[in-house]
């Protein structure tokens, strides 16, 4: 699954640690999501969407080969 998390975070000038604090996860989780090595759970995806004030599909999109 692809995501725009890194770009959205950069827009707000947040570090990975700051975003992790806001989402109640570890910085490693944010790093793994941004690098596409980990797909967040649905509850976390909703929290991310709520934090950025965007629908989930504007942040996450399926891989298309």
């Amino acid at each position, binding site marked *: 699954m692809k995501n725009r998390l890194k770009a959205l975070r950069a827009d707000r000038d947040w570090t990975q640690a*700051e975003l*992790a*604090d*806001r989402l*109640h*996860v*570890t910085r*490693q*989780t944010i*790093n*793994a999501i941004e690098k596409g*090595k*980990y797909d*967040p*759970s649905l509850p*976390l995806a909703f929290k991310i969407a709520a934090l950025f004030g965007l629908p989930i599909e504007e942040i996450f999109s399926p891989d298309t080969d």
Partner: protein
Amino acid sequence: MTDTRTETSLQAGLKKSTFQLFLATGAWVGSTALMSFGPSAIWGFDVAVTFLAIAVNLIVGSFMLYSFFKHLKNMDELQRQTHLEAMALTLGITMVLTVIYGALPQAKVLASTQPANVLFVIGISYILSVITLWLWRTSE
């Protein structure tokens, strides 16, 4: 301010459950040693006391299991996913190696097998799986 408290509570919860798991595991190891060596070294093979030691071991073992589940729940979701995948890998590795190990006496490669050796396979597989999966997911 609020965010700092949130991160602290995540880390504090994990530290607390790690310490509880450490204590529970230590108590289980102690009660297992008592159950194993107590009959010959302490109470002279009294069956009633041995059953009591087994009951204590079961209770402490259940507490250790509860502590482990609590520890898993306190983890951040990436940590939890890593541990669950490591458990799946450990199950598969242990199954394959145990079947091979069990076949060695029949093949006259070993005189006998020790069931306790499976515990080493479980422990080593689990630790290596957690480390490998974590490093793979969190590498910068």
